[in-house]
């Protein structure tokens, strides 16, 4: 960690970066540059949505897609495909992508760990376990996000308690605890699946990560939970930013760190739980998207959260489009497809200097 002046940086323990970022990599992003980058990413969202509405096992020309969107209540095959089938699915993909992006960015800032995402912290697995148990028990779908939230938060609390502390050891413990708790929750889900194998294949399809067959009711449900989560997340951007400086520094600036950490963990769990309920366990979006956005808008939560939401939406919309077209008429589960993209990215990340 030699600085350009040849001096070591004034710090006692570098906490999270896998390797110190090279000085050449760091550049200051002016407000103007951040705005331009954010606007570009925001512009990609409608483009991705339109492309996803056009492309599928049946190709619908852009003019017909437009006509169906302008006259949604007219009858015709274009309306049925675009408004009845693809549009709710695309909107769910937007919600899930945005949610996972925000949850990932929030958790990475909270734990000051670039390898953290809803998957690693056990939030996804906990939410999946609660949701699977609720589905197996035949509980009404409207209640499932709330139960998934409880499950996700419970796992997150266990993981956070095991991996607490502003130290490299704390971060390693956190990842280890996350992997362990996720494995435990996954084992419990497998048990539920085995017991209900004959009765309900839906749980298996849902668990593999996929938004096939989702309708307008699901859009409404997930968007209400996500709106709440995003609202709370935006209300805590200053706290998230202060936590970027480390727990000790944040305390020194008068922050009630413990309360803020639990609050932010609960928000990330709420958002993740809402996503898991409609899409099953989708990994890597929460990990990849914030990393891709940081060089464009910086790690400042005021910019990173909106950018991660928008970019996450683009990634999941396009991934879902691929999932239903690559092997059409068969579908690849979204979680499986994203794993194929995400694992190489994860390995690339592990070799690359990372800045939070």
């Amino acid at each position, binding site marked *: *960690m030699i*600085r*350009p*002046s040849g*001096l*070591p*940086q*004034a*710090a*006692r*323990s*570098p*906490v*999270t*970066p896998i390797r110190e*970022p090279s*000085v050449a990599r*760091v*550049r*200051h*992003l002016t407000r103007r540059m951040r705005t331009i980058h954010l606007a570009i990413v925001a512009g990609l969202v409608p483009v991705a949505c339109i492309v996803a509405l056009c492309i599928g096992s049946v190709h619908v020309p852009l003019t017909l897609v437009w006509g169906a969107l302008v006259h949604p209540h007219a009858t015709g095959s274009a309306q049925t495909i675009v408004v009845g089938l693809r549009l709710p699915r695309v909107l769910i993909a937007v919600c899930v992508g945005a949610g996972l992006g925000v949850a990932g960015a929030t958790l990475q800032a909270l734990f*000051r760990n670039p390898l953290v995402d809803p998957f690693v912290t056990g939030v996804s697995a906990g939410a999946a376990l609660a949701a699977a148990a609720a589905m197996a028990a035949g509980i009404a779908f409207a209640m499932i996000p709330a139960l998934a939230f409880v499950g996700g938060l419970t796992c997150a609390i266990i993981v956070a308690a095991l991996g607490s502390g*502003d*130290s490299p050891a704390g971060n390693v413990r956190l990842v280890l605890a996350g992997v362990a708790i996720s494995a435990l929750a996954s084992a419990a889900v497998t048990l539920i699946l085995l017991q209900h194998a004959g009765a309900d294949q839906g749980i298996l399809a849902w668990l593999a990560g996929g938004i096939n067959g989702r309708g307008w009711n699901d859009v409404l449900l997930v968007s209400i939970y996500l709106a709440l989560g995003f609202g709370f997340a*935006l*209300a*805590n*951007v*200053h*706290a998230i*930013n*202060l936590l*970027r*400086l*480390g*727990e*000790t*520094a944040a*305390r*020194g*600036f*008068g*922050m*009630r760190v413990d309360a803020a950490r639990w609050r932010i963990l609960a928000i990330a769990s709420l958002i993740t739980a809402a996503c898991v309920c409609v899409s099953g366990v989708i990994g890597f979006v929460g990990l990849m998207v914030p990393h891709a956005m*940081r060089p464009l808008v*910086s*790690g*400042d939560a*005021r910019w990173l959260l909106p950018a991660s939401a928008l970019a996450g939406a683009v990634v999941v919309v396009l991934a879902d489009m691929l999932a239903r077209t690559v092997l059409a008429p068969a579908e690849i589960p979204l979680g499986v497809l994203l794993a194929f993209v995400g694992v190489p990215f994860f390995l690339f990340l592990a070799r690359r200097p990372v*800045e*939070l």
Partner: protein
Amino acid sequence: MTMSMVSGRDIAISYGARHVLEGVDLSLAPGRFVAMIGPNGGGKSSLLRVLAGTQAPTAGHVVRTGRVALVAPSSNPPGDLTPFDLASYGLASRRKFWQWSLASDDAMRVRDALARCELSERANDPVALLSAGEVQRTWIAAALATAPDVLLVDEPTTHLDLKYQLAVLQTLRELARAGVAIVAAIHDLTLAGRFADEVALVAGCRLQCGPPDEILERRALSDAFGISVSTYRHPQDGYLVCLPS
């Protein structure tokens, strides 16, 4: 009688069965620079946290009549932050969520704090491109932006070369002249004696506080650090030099 910004009575700090400090009384007056010295693990950082209110003492109580800021960075700040950003973050716990940008008077306060730490010209450079001394001064500026009456700084000169050690201590000295009460945990005994108005020796569960000439005494230092320490006056400048003998 000088007003006290922070005063502690009968403070005790223990970690399990290990007693770090017992029966500590102290009072911090505006405009005084107190250098806290002592062996590693002696309780300097713990005492600073107790004074700042981020750690509860095992016994005793602390009364704070002024605003207290603690600079105790435990890790590198994110490299993409600028000194302006970092100092702005220091005000985060006072900002409402709808105050997306810094209010104009807060922005002025941040710029003023950066100017006092001679960082105006580097205010918009990424922290990763700053020297170690500038990073340390950025932390101090971030604390100053909160307009503290008392500034507690844990090891501000650690990892710095001599030039930057002097620069940081000079900054603290000037802040003390401007009326801020400063307590800095410092390992270099000579620099502690040269810059501080008072030296506080934290060792053997006790705190001794007084003028540098009184505390930086050969026998007391040798006892505290468990090695033989020599002290003598610098032949030209006259300040106390403390070295292991």
